[in-house]
């Protein structure tokens, strides 16, 4: 009876829902941290570079990046199934979203670790 899909991120509705909520918390924390950093620190190249030189912040940034990707996948998948009624354009839209997120994640890793 359930209407399961193969293009959503989780295997079912509750998994998608948890992914979206959990990633939202990560993104909120990351945003608050950055806000705090901007308010308390005199931001220049040195301080910015020092922040990203720390291992834990690289991990935190990667977590935030993965969270954006997961959050956007669930969210945009939902938007696409709401508004794009023909299967082919919908699939192309979803594929384009996933491709963009994949590129962002790989590119982000490259930037964070200076590979």
């Amino acid at each position, binding site marked *: *009876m*359930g*209407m*399961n*899909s193969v293009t*959503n991120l*989780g295997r*079912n*509705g*509750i*998994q*998608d*829902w*948890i992914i979206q909520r959990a990633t939202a918390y990560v993104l909120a924390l990351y945003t608050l941290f950055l806000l705090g950093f901007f308010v308390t620190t005199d931001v220049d190249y040195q301080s910015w570079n020092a922040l990203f030189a720390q291992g834990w912040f690289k991990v935190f940034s990667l977590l935030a990046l993965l969270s954006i990707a997961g959050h956007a996948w669930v969210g945009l998948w*939902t938007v696409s*199934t*709401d*508004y794009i009624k023909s299967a082919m354009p919908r699939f192309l839209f979803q594929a384009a979203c996933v491709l963009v997120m994949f590129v962002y994640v790989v590119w982000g890793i490259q930037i964070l670790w200076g590979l």
Partner: protein
Amino acid sequence: MLVSLYRYNPESDNAPYMQDVEVEIPAGKDLMVLDVLNLVKEKDPSMSYRRSCREGVCGSDGMNMNGKNGLACITPVSEVAKGNKLVLRPLPGLPVIRDLVVDMGLFYKQYEKVMPYLVNDNPAPAIERLQSPEDREKLDGLYECILCACCSTACPSFWWNPDKFIGPSGLLQAYRFLADSRDTAQAERLANLDDPFSVFRCRGIMNCVSVCPKGLNPTKAIGHIRNLLLQRAT
């Protein structure tokens, strides 16, 4: 009073249109919207709408009054009319059969999906399946639904996916049976609601709560279902 009516007769009209009708309201009286419709029908017998009990119990005359869904029979004109103008349209999102009469097929299909009946395969006791007063209390705010469809047709998620999203009304009924201490099919019921559409298309905008003529809270029931699904999945 000026009444603007949504008119559509598929046998003679190419497209729906709005018709303005002047209706004499008896002085000093605040009629219900259904009374006004009855006055319109006296003038123009071709005007079609559903009505039955005329006291908010049968759920037949759900319609959109000046932009908000409700039951015409228990909605005073003074509550909805703006600038002495009453605008009546059919419930949004469902196919119009004629004038204010909509095809409720999709709505009932979603209702059917949630198995709106008690499932209990245990041998029936001699007299009845007893429930403690506390267990019975859990059904308050759920069993009162009259299936008027005001909530589901006020819900954008139901407009976009009426074939996949169960909608506030169906989900309220789903929880009514999930919460019933006499029901033994909770696992099966939850398994049927697990997909990304049936429950999770609810984005919590609470249009359903704002329009329910019985004052029920489908959003709260949907939250309870989500918690049950969460408990089951973690």
